[in-house]
């Protein structure tokens, strides 16, 4: 019975949204360094490009307002301006200053690999090479050779000792890096230890490099995303437990909090686009988008946000709340972990349908042979209760698996 309720609660809403679901089109918001305001591009049946004052633009005009983003196009059409804000534009400098970063909740909520490759940071070679071994940081820092599947004792001792001497408390609770050879250079890993201290660990000419980063009192990180940008201003974006975003500057290890406000890393996206003049920090969650423009010294210049109706407030969502008590699902767009997620509908309209179905079930029962009211009530109380609680799912389940043990 429970199985049938679960099967119905998984399959029916899925089918419903497959049929009636509509895509949510998030407007694309970018700060214009020409007009010093936000430009908005809306996709949909017709493409609308406008600014926050309500002026509408053609595609060409829109691109000219965002020369840092559309530089290639503007150069091709010959409409790229020579100076912006009195600064002569050099294509190489613009390219150098460009950076894109995206955080999505499933970056954080995903199984840890547990093993990471430690690259040689100063190999003297132009390209990075995949090391032969992988490390884990449990009760010590341990390197396992992939070919033999055996621990390299000497290297493990060397690195464990280096960590230990810098005050590292084993084991590591978070290891963040860019484990790929397709990056411009290697900066190792940022590691959070068991005492919530932050360390920078890398391998320089075969020797460990360990640096303890001084943190403000009580700062705990939810997520660390290392970056590899051409301008080499910082190692990583760090999101703390309160949802604030920090950067860790290159070489001098300063933690700088971005004045962009907090967000919920469990359910919201964050994008950071850097260009020659500004940083655009864009938060996107269920029913809203919020953009903050920063200057190159990370001071806040402007902010703009929009909200729209979430799915459950739209006609198809309202119909959904009438029909179904909620949804049961394993997957979530915000996590790579599977577990049973029960989402009860925000409005309890479904209770009417549940009661109606329970009444219908009761009527069907009383039409059967040899049933008396008392027998009906006592024998099928469980069924009726299931229908009231789980609505249409329970109604189907009860009728597929009749509770005949009570006969």
């Amino acid at each position, binding site marked *: 019975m429970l199985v049938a309720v679960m*099967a119905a609660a998984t399959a029916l809403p899925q089918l419903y949204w497959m049929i009636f679901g509509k895509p949510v089109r998030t407007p694309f918001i970018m700060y214009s360094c020409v007009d010093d305001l936000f430009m908005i591009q809306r996709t949909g049946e017709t493409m609308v490009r406008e600014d926050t004052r309500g002026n509408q633009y053609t595609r060409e005009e829109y691109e000219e307002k965002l020369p840092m983003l559309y530089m290639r196009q503007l150069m091709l059409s010959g409409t790229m301006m020579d100076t912006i804000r009195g600064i002569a534009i050099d294509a190489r400098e613009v390219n150098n200053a460009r950076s894109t970063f995206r955080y999505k909740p499933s970056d954080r909520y995903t*199984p840890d690999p547990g*093993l990471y490759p430690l690259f040689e940071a100063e190999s003297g070679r132009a390209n990075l090479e995949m090391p*032969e071994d992988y490390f*884990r940081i449990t009760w010590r820092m341990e390197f396992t050779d992939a070919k033999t599947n055996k621990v390299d004792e000497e290297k493990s001792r060397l690195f464990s000792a280096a960590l230990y001497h810098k005050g590292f408390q084993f084991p590591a609770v978070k290891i963040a890096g860019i484990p790929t050879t397709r990056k411009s250079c290697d900066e190792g890993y940022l590691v959070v230890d068991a005492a919530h201290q932050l360390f920078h660990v890398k391998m320089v000419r075969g020797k460990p490099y360990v640096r303890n980063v001084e943190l403000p009192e009580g700062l705990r990180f939810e997520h660390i995303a290392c970056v590899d940008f051409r301008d080499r201003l910082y190692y990583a974006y760090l999101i703390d437990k309160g949802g604030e975003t920090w950067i860790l500057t290159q070489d001098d290890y300063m933690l700088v909090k971005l004045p962009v406000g907090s967000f919920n890393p469990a359910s919201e996206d964050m994008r950071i686009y850097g260009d020659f003049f500004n940083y655009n920090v864009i938060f996107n969650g269920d029913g809203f988008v919020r953009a903050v423009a920063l200057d190159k010294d990370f001071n806040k210049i402007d902010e703009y946000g929009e909200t729209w109706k979430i799915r459950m407030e739209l006609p198809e969502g309202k119909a959904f709340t009438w029909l179904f008590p909620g949804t049961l699902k394993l997957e979530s767009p915000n996590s790579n972990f*599977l577990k049973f997620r029960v989402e009860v509908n925000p409005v309890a309209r479904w209770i009417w349908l549940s009661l109606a179905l329970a009444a219908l079930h009761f009527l069907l029962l009383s039409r059967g042979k040899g049933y008396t009211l008392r027998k009906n009530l006592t024998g099928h109380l469980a069924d009726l209760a299931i229908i009231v609680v789980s609505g249409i799912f329970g109604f189907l389940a009860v009728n597929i698996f009749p509770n*005949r043990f009570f006969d």
Partner: protein
Amino acid sequence: MLIRSMIFKEWVKVRWFLLLYTLLAVLAVAYIFIRVRHDITFHEANNYWYFILFQGHSWFRLLRYIPLAGGLVLAVAQYFPETVNKRIKLTFHLPVEENRSLLMMMQFGTLCLLACFLLLFLLLCGLSRVWFPTEIIFSAVVSVTPWFLAGFAAYYLAALIILEPVWLRRILYLLVAAAFVPLYLTGSVPGGYGPAILALFLLTCLLSVALLFSGYRFRKGEM
């Protein structure tokens, strides 16, 4: 004595199917590791580990539907002969309580599946220790556990459907099974199933008693 001969009857029904299935499944596991060995030789172990750790390569994915197939094969072998001429009614005329004889059949099937799956599981873990570190093995274990549970779930649901006397109900049960079993087989990143395993295990245990429904209805003489 009666119970022993009943068990013997179950064994006679399933033995060839079970042995053949086990043989094929063991061959599948062997193939997985032949493949692993081949890929490691051709791509170097460090690169192969990299595919697994950071690119979501699941080296054991061949195993996905194998336990499911096992559950179905066993259920068909064990229960289909009972529906021919409604032979199961004979079982119910034996001087053993009816639910007990049904439960006994089911326990027998469960134990057969368990033995077979345990063999596959241990083979998988044992052999993977040759090439892989604990982290990789652990995430593989988390990924394959729901697949093995799916085998049990399929066995119970198939038994329920096969023993069900009324065709309409059979189809309804089939629909429920078709909506339910995919919960065990949802694609996920290696290790992603971790938080769901306990719930799936409990559900599978619950399913194991579902068979009693059909048996109950069968002996009530519903057609």
